[in-house]
């Protein structure tokens, strides 16, 4: 199908540290369709940011893609040279980072930082690029854009800086926008402004968004499709409704139970027990094994395979297999009893 813009197939990224190999992303697969919003959710250290960096190949020196494919319009970009990748970064795929305070260069004006990206990727002249920068700032709702382009990042508030980052990422009209925790550093009212802006721009420009966050609220707000990650692996993926209303992985279920709310004021939360996983000593089987209430022996020994539960809804959990076997047995038993 041509609608599949980006396909990640069995991606594996590791960091080679003094203490040993850290399998930050271990066998990750998902598809991104044109004009859709895909959410990647997980705890810190689950490998969600590393996934984004792997796609753009901006991993730190110790990190390496050691397996799998990343297909952009059917072409494997993991095989691209550095120069070819530079054409993709910013031009086909844009990225917004978490921290708007540190991801802008403090010694250049905002205008020059946006025009730099435009000059690099399009054949506009300097004057055209400058005009485009003003236009982009207006698009993302920065007031008095003509004055703002001459300002330095420190003169702007956090929300404004994030808008500048979005303007920069969108200035070359990428097909895919990767947003790595774009609102985590912002206050809720500013977060609401930025999310609203992203939704509006997505409708207007028709790009696809990969939204990386730990906030299930943001995910529910923004995303069509969701990928839940734990310990570098996919636990579950499917539509937003599948994940929120019919979770089939024990970790997803635990995550949803952990969210506090006023409705649960007098109830106790049901937290996931135990501590986060030690990435240096990954278990052989399911990474969630040690914290799972329904863990079985097979979970310890073998990593679970991904099973399609409903069309488009996949989960990697042995409990599902067990349940299917039980159901079959029960059905068989009922038939026998009937005869």
């Amino acid at each position, binding site marked *: 199908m041509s609608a599949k813009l980006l396909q990640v197939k069995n991606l594996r990224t590791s960091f080679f540290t003094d203490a040993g190999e850290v399998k930050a992303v271990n066998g990750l697969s998902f598809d991104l369709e044109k004009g859709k919003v895909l959410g990647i959710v997980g705890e810190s250290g689950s490998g969600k940011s590393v996934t984004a960096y792997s796609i753009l190949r901006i991993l730190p020196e110790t990190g390496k893609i050691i397996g799998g494919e990343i297909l952009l319009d059917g072409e494997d970009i993991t095989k691209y040279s550095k120069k070819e990748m530079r054409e993709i970064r910013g031009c086909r795929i844009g990225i917004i980072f978490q921290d708007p305070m540190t991801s802008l260069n403090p010694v250049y004006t905002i205008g020059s930082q946006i025009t730099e990206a435009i000059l690099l990727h399009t054949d506009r002249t300097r004057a055209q690029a400058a005009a485009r920068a003003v236009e982009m700032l207006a698009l993302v709702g920065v007031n008095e854009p003509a004055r703002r382009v001459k300002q330095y990042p420190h003169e702007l508030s956090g929300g404004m800086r994030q808008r500048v980052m979005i303007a920069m990422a969108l200035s070359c009209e990428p097909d895919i926008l990767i947003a790595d925790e774009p609102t985590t550093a912002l206050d809720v009212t500013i977060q609401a402004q930025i999310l609203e802006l992203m939704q509006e721009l997505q409708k207007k420009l028709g790009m696809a968004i990969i939204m990386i966050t730990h906030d299930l609220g943001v995910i529910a707000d923004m995303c069509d499709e969701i990928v839940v990650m734990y310990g570098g692996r996919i636990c579950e993926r499917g539509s937003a409704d599948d994940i929120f209303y019919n979770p089939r992985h024990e970790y997803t279920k635990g995550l949803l139970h952990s969210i*506090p709310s006023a409705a649960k004021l007098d109830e*106790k939360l049901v937290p*996931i027990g135990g501590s986060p996983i030690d990435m240096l000593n990954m278990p052989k089987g399911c990474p969630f094994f040690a914290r799972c209430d329904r863990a079985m022996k097979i979970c310890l020994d073998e990593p679970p395979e991904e099973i399609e539960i409903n069309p488009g809804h996949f989960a990697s959990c042995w409990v599902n297999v067990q349940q299917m076997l039980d159901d079959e047995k029960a059905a068989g038993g009922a038939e026998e009893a009937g005869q």
Partner: protein
Amino acid sequence: MSEVLVEVKNLKQYFPIKTGLFKTTPLKAVDDVSFVINAGETLGLVGESGCGKTTVGRSMLHLYKPTGGEVLFRGEKVDAQSIKHLCREMQMVFQDPYSSLNPRMTVADIIGEPLDIHHICADKNERKEKIKQLMTLVGLNTEHARRYAHEFSGGQRQRIGIARAIAVNPSFIVCDESVSALDVSIQAQIINMFKELQERLGLAYLFIAHDIHVVNHMSRRVAVMYMGKIVETGQTAELAKNQIHPYTQSLYSAVPIPDPKMSRQRRRIILEGDVPSPLKLPGGCSFRTRCRFATDRCAAEAPPFTDRGGGHFVACWNK
């Protein structure tokens, strides 16, 4: 009616900021804040960064000398003298589990330090027992007493911080964004523990957080702060369905709902503009520059804090 434990009266906390060679301008971090916390009760304090919620917590424990107003603990004024014995009653759990524990001390020393300062244990054995007891209470493995803070994960470190706070057997704890730095699954563990400890030890909390879901879950009453002032306060359930102040309305509507169907239906009230600089606060009501309902009156006079029934107080002219 339960006993009033802590009373904050017209608390003001200004910080002098150099704005020129010879000029200082007061930054009004907290400006005329009053509230009461009863024994065994939790008051939630929400607001955005820079609204002064942390300063309120710190001033209450006299970590800053208040510019004006006073804090009373069981009727006794908290000042530089009285805090020396009152800190056995009032404790704090900090936001950052990484920087609030001394990396050169073992867990036993961290938890034992307040015990030593207040001469709680008669001898070494009793101290050891007490530390063990505290570690068990917060769900830490007592075998880890000789380890250092860096050997623990964020959630476990927060448990160490809590054990340190309850070591002196206080009746009031300021929890300053105590669960904000943690992942959701760990956050739920710590929230449950705060609630358990409250039931078991009869603790009262001032629970400061920017996450409304967390605050709502923890507290029966909530106060909303904006630019150094409390703009609205009321019962959690009442506030959740009936916000009166325009700032509270937009704050509550901006919180992402972790439910796709509900979040598709609701409408956010998007605030115009940015938070004003605390050095140049607009006169009158400080929210008026971002408010949809602002009138001339809002610019002329700061709105009084009035009762709208059932302990629901609001500071707004128009609502």
